[in-house]
């Protein structure tokens, strides 16, 4: 029915990923360099505006998503602990699950979906309609103005969104374990729940989430900045950025776990 199908090979996905990886690393280190050396602060107002867009446009959807993940952590933990005969220890599972693993992953997924692809669509449209070239002609460095200010905005806003997200997930797990399943009393749950986490864990978790966020913003900026091929090209670039982001989120999640908790589970058990 449709003879003009694009041909896809079995190895296209890994090849595309390897291709893009080097380019993204070069582009990303350039953008991060601009922000870290202070040159990005030339457009501090634009950075603040981007932070505002993140807060008003994405905060609610991020928290809603994290809330669902928190609910899932709660019920899985409650039923698993029932099956090993220790339903009162459901707080252990949900504390580990919320703080160390699920919230960083959920944050990464929804950030890649909402913010990453949003940046690609926005910058890609600018590239297609030659607005980026126009910026260059006007003497404004487009990488600094568009990419670096978005990274700056993300670094301003996202740590706070992330910390509130952790709180939202805690609330959701509490609702799921104590109100929905109800094997354990509120006090018993919270005792175990708070025992099995410490401020350094929160800090490690924040680092994990922020590394993911940084790379997602950079990947989005790269694909938007290099989009080509008309309106269709923007759609394809958006789809590609999502593929790269999913793989990167999982790899960072695993590396973060290995680095922070790999040899020391940091649990208040034994000596």
């Amino acid at each position, binding site marked *: 029915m449709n003879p003009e199908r694009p041909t896809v090979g079995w190895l296209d996905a890994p090849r595309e990923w390897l291709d893009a990886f080097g380019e993204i690393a070069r582009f990303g280190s350039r953008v991060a360099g601009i922000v870290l050396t202070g040159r990005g602060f030339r457009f501090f107002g634009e950075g603040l505006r981007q932070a505002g867009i993140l807060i008003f446009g994405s905060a609610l959807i991020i928290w809603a998503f994290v809330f669902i993940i928190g609910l899932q952590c709660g019920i*899985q933990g409650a039923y698993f602990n029932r099956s090993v005969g220790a339903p009162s220890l459901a707080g252990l599972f949900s504390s580990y699950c919320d703080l160390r693993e699920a919230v960083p992953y959920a944050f990464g997924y929804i950030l890649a979906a909402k913010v990453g692809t949003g940046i690609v669509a926005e910058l890609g449209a600018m590239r297609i309609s030659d607005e980026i070239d126009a910026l260059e002609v006007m003497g404004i460095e487009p990488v600094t103005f568009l990419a670096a200010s978005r990274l700056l905005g993300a670094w301003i806003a996202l740590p706070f969104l992330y910390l509130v997200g952790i709180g939202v997930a805690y609330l959701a797990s509490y609702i799921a374990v104590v109100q929905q399943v109800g094997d354990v009393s509120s006090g018993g749950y919270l005792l175990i729940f708070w025992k099995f986490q410490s401020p350094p864990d929160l800090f490690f978790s924040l680092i994990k989430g922020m590394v993911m966020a940084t790379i997602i913003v950079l990947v989005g900026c790269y694909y938007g900045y290099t989009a080509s091929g008309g309106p269709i090209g923007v759609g394809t670039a958006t789809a590609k950025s*999502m593929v790269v982001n999913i793989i990167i989120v999982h790899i960072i999640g695993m590396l973060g776990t290995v680095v922070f908790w790999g040899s020391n589970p940091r649990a208040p058990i034994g000596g």
Partner: protein
Amino acid sequence: MMILTAKTIVAAVRPPFPYGEELVWQFLFVLKLCWFPLTISTFALNLGAPGLQAAGILSLFGALDRLGGFFVVTAVRWIGPLVTAVVVAGVAGTAITADLGARKIREELDALQVLGVDPIKNLVVPRFLSLMVVTALLDIFAIVFGLSAGIAAELIYRQSLGGFFATLFTNATVTDIAVSALMCTMFGAIIAVVCCYKGMTASGGAEGVGRAVNQAVVIALVAVFFFQFVVTSVVLATNPQLQAIR
């Protein structure tokens, strides 16, 4: 979207069936796009989250053989379907929306309608059916790679694998696997409908297709995760044999 779902289901079962070739092609397309991200993602997620974290705490108790039972909960019930949904929505769903959105912008969909070809029957139905089948199939891959990540975690802690397999197979039930696969079929349906709808209603030139992809993947992820929460709570609450102590 509900109207599109209903129309798609009706078009799928009512003859004639002109979508066979497109169905096979879509099936291979999704499979070819998804296998690599899925393999990496599910191995990494299972090695990090349930593998090393749970092995760390279980080794304090000296009960590393219980990791197999734990992997039934995580890899089969939870993370397998979850990662499959994220990868299918993020990889195949975005590709579908970008493809259909491009056709909408180029007015190919209108041209098809003028030619008397029903776009729902010829474009949406094959994607809907192939995504349902592929998602369930990829779920099995996700479970296999998830369990191999569990084996890797056991090996990192220098355990013999006998205890892992013993607790794995005593705790795993047919219900777990069946629910996991059926849930993924429904995920595929949700993702296909959301992504086709957003692609077919794309508008607004260059930014329109990108916006459509953006909205499609956000709606698909939130819908799928919420659906998974509902299904998991219902299944776990109505099947007490899943929580028996073994």
